[in-house]
């Protein structure tokens, strides 16, 4: 009896061992490393020198533009995504013909899993000098500048993260008990008040999941502002690439990274709180 329990525990340990090692060595330890670095100093020739100081955190305003751009464009981008995504998710979950539903859903999922680099490149191509501006020049609007503007970055954000917003909203709308909608209508509610009081309220966990995921990924975004903002719209991601790969100020970069993670955690907690308070349900699992 005792031996068989030991064998069982040993098997469990063997099954979980590799994954645990992976998580510890490549997630937990690196995170501890940047936390330690963030209270250190920059070595004279770049890199890290041991110290215990909050000077790196006090220095954060030096990258105020990057923080400002990110903190404005991440929520605005997530909101723009949401406004486009909700009607699509609503249509897919409640209006689309049954036999089309899975195909349409697959068409939403596919871009999410294809290279963000290539998809952003596609917009560089469309917005660039030989794309839409050339067409506009053809019909008489000369010198229209589209690429390397905040508008182009916002467009790239909506394009890149739309699938990630549609999916969780779709999942929460699809689970919705349709009898509630009928009951609401039977009790004399207008379509608008049914939508606000029942549909929107019950799909809020999906909305908050999508919003927080998109916003967190945007906080660390690098490709979209680099390729569509052309060095004019700087994000925290750009600051991090610069600090780690060019100017090699690792402690300062670590302080920015830790700040970014803390902001992400706050966003996640806030999203959970809001959806729990309004609809009584927590976030939606995507897988």
């Amino acid at each position, binding site marked *: 009896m005792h031996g068989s329990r030991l064998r*069982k525990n040993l*098997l*469990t*340990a*063997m099954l*979980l061992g*590799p*994954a645990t090692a*992976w*998580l510890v060595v*490549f*997630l937990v*330890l*690196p995170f501890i*490393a*940047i936390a330690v*670095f963030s209270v250190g100093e920059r070595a004279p020739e770049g890199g*890290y020198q041991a110290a215990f100081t909050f000077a790196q955190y006090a220095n954060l305003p030096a990258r105020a533009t990057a923080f400002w751009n990110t903190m404005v464009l991440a929520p605005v981008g997530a909101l723009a995504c949401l406004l486009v995504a909700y*009607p*699509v998710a609503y*249509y897919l979950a409640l*209006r689309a013909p049954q036999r089309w539903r899975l195909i*349409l859903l697959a*068409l939403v*999922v*596919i871009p999410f*899993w*294809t*290279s963000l*680099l*290539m*998809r952003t*490149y*596609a917009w*560089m*191509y*469309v917005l*660039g000098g*030989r*794309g839409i501006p*050339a*067409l506009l020049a053809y019909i008489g609007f000369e010198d229209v500048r589209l690429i390397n503007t905040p508008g182009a970055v916002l467009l790239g954000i909506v*394009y890149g993260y*739309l699938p990630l917003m549609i999916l969780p909203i779709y999942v929460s709308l699809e689970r919705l008990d349709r009898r509630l909608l009928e009951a609401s209508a039977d009790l004399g509610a207008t379509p608008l008040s049914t939508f606000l009081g029942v549909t929107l309220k019950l799909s809020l966990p999906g909305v908050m999941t999508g919003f927080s995921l998109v916003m*967190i990924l945007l*906080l*660390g975004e*690098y*490709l979209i502002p680099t390729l569509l903002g052309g060095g004019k719209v700087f994000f*925290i*991601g750009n600051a*991090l*690439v610069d600090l*780690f790969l060019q100017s090699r100020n690792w402690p300062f970069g*670590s302080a920015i990274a830790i700040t*970014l*993670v803390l902001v*992400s955690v706050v966003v*996640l907690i806030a999203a959970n709180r809001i959806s729990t308070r309004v609809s009584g349900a927590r976030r939606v699992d995507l*897988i």
Partner: protein
Amino acid sequence: MRAFVIAVFAFLYLPIALVVLFSFNAGHHASEFTGFSVQWYGKALANPFLVEALKNSLFIATTSASLAALCGTAAALGLARVSVRTRAVFDALLGAAIVVPGVVIGISTLVALVQLFGVVNPFLASIWPDGQPPRLALGYGSIIAAHGLFSMALVTMIVGTRLGSLDRNLVEASSDLYATPLTTFRSIVLPQILPAVVAGFLLAFTFSFDDFIVAFFVAGAQTTLPIYVFASIRRGVTPEINAIATIVLVASVLLVVLAQWQLRQRKPSN
């Protein structure tokens, strides 16, 4: 609303369609389509740097996705056997591995590995008997490990979800009929979770093959296809990049469709 949805789908697919269309353009300019040609594909595949980057990406994606599929599946099976509390800790770590932005994963892995190599390399040199001691450095290994972190978490979640919907009655029936645990696993559990494992592998492969930002930090002297493409894009848009983009897009789409199809296979109906 239907018109809006159609417009959104057009928005999602038109830019990609344009890139694909112009990869077959005979002329050099993006504004006019002057004829059908596959010359840019020929040019792309004759570029030795590009082919090298493509080979690197294929090797890295295959290795990291295989390791992730093995470790992730094992972890999902293991998680079904532990207490609720252990499971919660594990789930939180897996969630973090998926949600933390690639930039942060990239830099923290870079920092930790450089620090680790700084300790290990002098140590190896001091105990090495004679000749050139091995030197650990960033490269294939670090990209595989960093990609594998996300992928392993993904596989664990996908396989875990499938395990959760597994028909318990079949497992009990099997052991009631005196099947050994190994036989039960082989004939009942494995066939039911296999589509999820395959789907997890394909998505992991796609993720690794497409990832730019994590590899950008931990690649060291190596080049992957997205790193190469990113560098070329910054030098200017050329039809050659359209050809590479088309190849990558078509490959990713095929893999994702295959993965989705696997996930829908033999889904237990309840």
